[in-house]
């Protein structure tokens, strides 16, 4: 049995009726006329964009790893923050890279999960310290006492675990948009607003979206030191761990997927919104996003970590071990802050009073 397709007016929502004269559809409520093919496309697009988004990622199977090549590993645990890190036996460091606690305990190596790949440290400790010290110049309210060379030298290189997400993202989106044209004659000013419905479908590929897989590493820090250059990524080998600490993931793939989904969705919506240029107001109406060719990999990325205690508060910093990008939260010298405020206010006051004098 054939089904009868009922179309609704995109302007007012009233049922559309077929107009034999124009061979199109007519709305008896708002008097608008539409081309039949246009309404079919609109109906099709609305059906697609109205479906629920599906973020289907492939499952990930962890693989155990046993060091080879004669490198002896030990496990280090921090009684303060509970971090469990691995490092080669020759590590002299006894400072927890995550919380700065110096009573880190060395134990028997229990193995790590084998990553798919690793980006080796590209900058050494000396360069990382230089990058950190150079970053001081960009921080206007940094206390002078904070620049303690001894503390800075406790910077530790850590391979932080990340889940890497690849996918091809398919999107169907509808927007409401308008364009306004203003003109006038000798008696009236006219404003014409044209209302549109915009339909967009397409795909967008993402690769190597990193999501921090360590509970101890602060997500904000790990996202702020992005991006990494994945052209330097190598197949994992235990030799890369020599002289550094390596954390193993304790955030599951399932937990990390939510973060990846949010970033993929935001970027997809932003990329498709750019295709709606030429309209004055564009308002997203519906969206449907789904993945194919999704892939999840486990990797270790190089980060220099540093904790500096200042005025009884611990300040954390991270330096991208590949690019040297420095992130963190610096202490604020209140005296410098208010001095700056007074200086700007004083100069501005002199200028505004001079302007006011000429205005009065």
């Amino acid at each position: 049995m054939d089904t009868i397709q009922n179309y609704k007016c995109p302007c007012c929502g009233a049922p559309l009726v077929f107009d034999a004269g124009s061979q199109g559809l007519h709305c008896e409520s708002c008097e608008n006329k539409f081309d039949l093919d246009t309404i079919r496309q609109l109906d099709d697009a609305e059906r697609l964009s109205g479906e629920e988004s599906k973020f289907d990622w492939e499952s990930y199977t962890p693989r155990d790893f046993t060091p080879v090549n004669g490198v002896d590993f030990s496990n280090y645990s921090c009684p303060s923050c509970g971090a469990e890190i691995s490092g080669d036996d020759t590590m002299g460091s006894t400072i927890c890279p995550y919380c700065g606690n110096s009573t880190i305990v060395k134990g028997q190596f229990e193995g790590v999960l084998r990553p798919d790949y690793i980006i080796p440290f590209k900058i050494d400790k000396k360069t990382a310290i230089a990058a950190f010290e150079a970053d001081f110049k960009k921080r206007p309210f940094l206390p002078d006492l904070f620049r303690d060379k001894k503390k800075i030298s406790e910077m530790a290189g850590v391979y932080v675990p990340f889940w890497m997400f690849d996918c091809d993202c398919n999107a169907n989106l509808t927007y409401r948009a308008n364009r306004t044209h203003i003109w006038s004659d000798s008696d009236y000013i006219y404003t014409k607003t044209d209302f549109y419905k915009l339909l967009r479908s397409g795909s967008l590929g993402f690769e190597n979206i990193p999501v921090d897989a360590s509970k101890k590493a602060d997500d904000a820090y790990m996202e702020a030191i992005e991006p990494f250059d994945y052209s330097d990524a190598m197949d994992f080998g235990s030799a890369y761990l020599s002289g550094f600490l390596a954390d193993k993931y304790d955030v599951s793939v399932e937990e990390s997927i939510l973060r990846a989904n949010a970033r993929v969705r935001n970027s997809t919506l932003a990329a498709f919104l750019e295709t709606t240029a030429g309209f004055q107001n564009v308002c997203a109406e519906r969206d449907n996003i789904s993945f194919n060719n999704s892939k999840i990999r486990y990797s270790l990325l190089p980060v220099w970590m540093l904790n500096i205690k200042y005025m009884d508060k611990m300040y954390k910093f991270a330096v991208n071990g590949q690019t040297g990008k420095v992130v963190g939260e610096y202490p604020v010298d209140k005296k410098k802050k208010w001095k700056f405020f007074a200086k700007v206010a004083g100069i501005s006051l002199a200028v505004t009073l001079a302007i006011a004098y000429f205005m009065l």
Partner: protein
Amino acid sequence: MKKFISFSLIFLLCATFPFASANDVPPLISDEAGHLTSSEETKLQEKLQGIYDTYGVYAIVFTEEEMSGISAEDSAEDFYNYFFSGKDCIILYIADYDREYALSAFGKKGKDAFSDDELADVEDAILPHLKKDNFSDAIFAFTDEAENILDVYTNGSTGYKIAVISIAIILPFIIALIAMLVQLSKMKTAVKQHYATNYIRPGSMNISRSLNLFLYSVITKKPRPKPSNSSSGSSNSRSGKF
């Protein structure tokens, strides 16, 4: 002709009036309709002279019983051309038989001080009195309002002064606060990323459908604002019946 004789008589009166001729003061009051008592006229003369001495703009009152075949605005302009040509003036003209009035400003300063909004303020001040035939009240209301407007024009309004000084004092602190917050934001660089734009595969964006479906148009029209006064090259004017 009647107008010429009328102006000539006024001119002769002024020329023969010892006080007026000694100080070369043109006739600030020409009350042909006789709405003012002599004491009111003396008081008004002092006030109008005071306005000129303070602000350099003549405020003039010209009344007639009956209009002489030309419009109220033209009557005010004729009076200006005859006695005050080239000077800064604001003239109130009243013809009580025809129940017409005109407010006309002449000269650069006169026109700058009495633009359409200011003339409307003067009009609002005098019309209630004219409608009740309280001509002397209307004339004094005109004088008071003209003085207020000239004071604001010359010295600026009190509200304006307070606003300028307040902004001049508060704005620098707002600027300093914003600048400080911008600098403070540099002290924390560990912030989450909300986008994955860095990880979009180059050239991977493929648009399979891009349709802009026109739905409907809405056209609205509103009348162009038109000036309610007649502003010729020589004067700003406002006139009407009461």
